[in-house]
């Protein structure tokens, strides 16, 4: 016991009970910071390990997406999670921030695609039914690029073909999308071999560019000369054999599709490279038509109106289309002071020469020139004809007009000019016009004025006639009545007079009858007169012969 000397002693203070036990190592306390450091480190490591790559994906809508819940799945394996969903600053779309596992880092390349998998009912079928229960998730399609990227634009609909499906993509150009849509099928001999991956309107708005994907191994049937055509819908043909209905599969009837095939006679063409461009034809007939490799342009100068003649209108040779109108212009002919319509047409001579070529060697330019010259000499002309009277659609018809005024091909121009003849419709119209013009020439207005004057005069005349009649009515009728009475009386008198006259006449008849004495006397008297006349004639004759008898007298005794 140690006591301070200057301090008082406290004898009554108890001593503490001493334990001999060794004091527990106070160093044990340092375990706490070590443990804390371990915990802290492990938390740090854990959070570092958990921290994958943070990417942002922008979608048009955040439908079905939930921060912290929506998973990101690659081939249905979760590789990440949506961390937050925000609306872009310009409010045009939704920016999804997602964290991907470290092992998914390799997926984050330029052409990786993200889309929201949700239940979809489309023409192609129903997909994503599982998401109805489990919620939507974001699907991933790994890209092939090596360019690392952390900002992506999400697709609005799942990609039709994922990147790892072997096959080739091709590009089709068409004027009309028809019923085609993304995911519409591609058929080869009615077998589904691919899909439409996407389409977009050309920048100039004149057509559409379709991207199609043909799966391997069918992509090797796409050759450089392969023809693609719309396989959607029903094709009903009426011909002499009856009605023919042809479609691709029933599915394509509903959803549309594209079919392709190479021309049968040229199957040895080289394979088409990926992203080759093709034209999409409207129908199989059009596609499989002999491809018009030779195109000749001709200029047809018409003087008549080309209203109703569209670009693309057929050039028709007795019902067979051998070309089409490619350009329509207006030109002023300064010499003749009139407008002409130079119509440029594309002429496919191969359509004409399919048979002819077999006999003759391959027809060159010269050959066709001679041929055309000869044809023109025989009256081969182009004429505008009305294809449809109702719509006024015109087409260019080629035909022989033996009576046509002579003309020649003009080969001197850059585009040879083919002679034309006024159309039948045009002639008819001209005639009509002439009639109308004649009509117009009539002084219709003057006539009308005259007629109006005449009518006016007539009117006044009629009015005066009317008043006159009224006057007559008022003044003359009573007099007339009395007059009529008088007349009747007079008539009675006349009748009496007539009766008397009849009596008189009867008497006269009696007097003049053949056996009446007066009659007999008359007859005798007339006979006497006759005799007298005869002797007068004798005398005359005698005097004529012997005029001297007047002086000398009659020489009756000389005989």
């Amino acid at each position, binding site marked *: *016991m*140690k*006591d*301070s000397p200057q*301090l008082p002693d*406290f004898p009554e*203070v*108890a*001593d*503490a*009970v*001493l*334990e*001999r*036990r*060794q*004091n527990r190592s*106070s160093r044990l*306390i*340092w375990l*706490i*910071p070590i*443990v*804390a*450091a371990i*915990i*802290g480190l492990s*938390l*740090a490591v*854990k*959070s570092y390990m958990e921290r994958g790559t943070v990417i942002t994906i922008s979608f048009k809508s955040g439908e079905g997406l*939930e*921060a*912290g*819940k929506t998973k990101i799945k690659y081939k249905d394996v979760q590789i990440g999670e949506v*961390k*937050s969903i925000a609306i872009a600053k310009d409010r045009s779309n939704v920016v999804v921030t997602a964290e991907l596992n470290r092992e998914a880092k390799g997926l984050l390349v330029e052409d990786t695609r993200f889309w929201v998998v949700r239940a979809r009912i489309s023409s192609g079928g129903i997909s994503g039914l599982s998401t109805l229960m489990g919620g939507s998730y974001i699907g991933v399609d790994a890209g092939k690029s090596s360019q690392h990227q952390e900002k992506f634009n999400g697709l609005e609909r799942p990609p039709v073909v994922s990147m790892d499906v072997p096959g080739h993509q091709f590009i089709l150009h068409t004027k009309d999308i028809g019923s085609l849509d993304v995911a519409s099928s591609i058929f080869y001999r009615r077998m589904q071999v691919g899909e439409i991956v996407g389409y977009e309107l050309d920048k100039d708005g004149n057509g559409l560019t379709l991207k199609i994907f043909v799966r391997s191994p069918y992509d090797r049937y796409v050759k450089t000369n392969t023809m693609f055509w719309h396989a959607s819908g029903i094709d009903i043909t009426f011909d002499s054999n009856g009605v023919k209905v042809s479609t691709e599969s029933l599915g394509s009837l509903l959803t549309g599709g594209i079919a392709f095939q190479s021309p049968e006679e040229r199957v040895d063409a080289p394979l088409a490279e990926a992203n080759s461009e093709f034209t999409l034809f409207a129908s199989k007939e059009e596609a499989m038509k002999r491809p018009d490799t030779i195109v000749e342009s001709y200029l047809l100068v018409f003087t008549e109106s080309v209203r109703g003649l569209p670009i693309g209108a057929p050039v028709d040779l007795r019902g067979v289309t051998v070309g089409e109108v490619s350009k329509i212009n207006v030109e002023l002919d300064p010499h003749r002071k009139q407008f002409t319509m130079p119509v440029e047409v594309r002429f496919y001579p191969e359509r004409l020469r399919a048979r002819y070529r077999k006999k003759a060697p391959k027809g060159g330019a010269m050959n066709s020139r001679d041929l055309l010259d000869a044809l023109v000499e025989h009256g081969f002309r182009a004429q505008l004809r009305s294809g449809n009277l109702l719509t006024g659609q015109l087409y260019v018809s080629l035909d022989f007009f033996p009576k046509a005024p002579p003309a020649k091909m003009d080969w001197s121009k850059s585009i040879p000019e083919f002679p034309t003849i006024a159309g039948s419709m045009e002639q008819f119209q001209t005639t009509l016009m002439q009639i109308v013009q004649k009509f117009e020439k009539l002084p219709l207005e003057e006539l009308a004025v005259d007629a109006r004057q005449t009518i006016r005069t007539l009117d006044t005349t009629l009015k005066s006639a009317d008043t006159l009649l009224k006057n007559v009515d008022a003044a003359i009728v009573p007099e007339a009545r009395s007059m009529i009475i008088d007349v009747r009386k007079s008539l009675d008198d006349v009748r009496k007079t007539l009766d008397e006259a009849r009596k008189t006449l009867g008497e006269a008849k009696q007097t003049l009858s053949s056996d009446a004495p007066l009659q007999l006397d008359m007859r005798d008297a007339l006979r006497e007169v006759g005799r007298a006349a005869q002797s007068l004639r004798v005398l005359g004759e005698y005097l004529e012969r012997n005029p001297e008898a007047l002086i000398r007298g009659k020489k009756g005794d000389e005989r």
Partner: protein
Amino acid sequence: MSSSIVTAATLGLCSCHACGLVMRPGSAFGKARCPKCGAAVHIRKPDSVRRCWALLIAAYILYLPANLLTIMETGSLISYRKDTIMSGVVHLWKSGSCAIAAIVFIASIMVPLFKLIALTILLISVQCRSTWWPTERSRLYRMVELVGRWSMLDVYVVTILAALVQIRSLATVRAGSGAVAFGTVVVLTMFAAMEFDPRLIWDPLRKESKS
């Protein structure tokens, strides 16, 4: 300090913390016990500074994950959030509840930090046998001890919410790993404050006055 001030230690005495019996502690080595109630007695808390340092360092280490890791995950039909303490404060501030944001900020960030710094100051000053402002340092210590438990407010809130709000997909609240770290920080600083013997603040003064 005048030399006339007598402490139990200068008299070679100590009192039992439990029953208040005054006794002679005897040897500085080994453990002494109260002859009356059997509680451990010591003039000064043994290894006070070292233990306090150990706990304080542990608290410092865990203070980082406590603030950096998520403390609470709240998910509802509409939104999903993962909040660290600071992001929660920011969110509260932005959403208009400035008062609550201030409370959370003070209780969950300022107070633990204050405790850590205050204890560090106390320990360093004690180790340097500093005679610098002993009264104020004592007051600081009392403050640290008083305020200690209130830092657990945050942890309480999180645990209660996590326990209550579990409506499956409608709304969920989960405690993040940050909450564990944060709780540990608070507990460790409380222990550190307990381990600290405030009498050590005054010891250098006595020595100084003696010499």
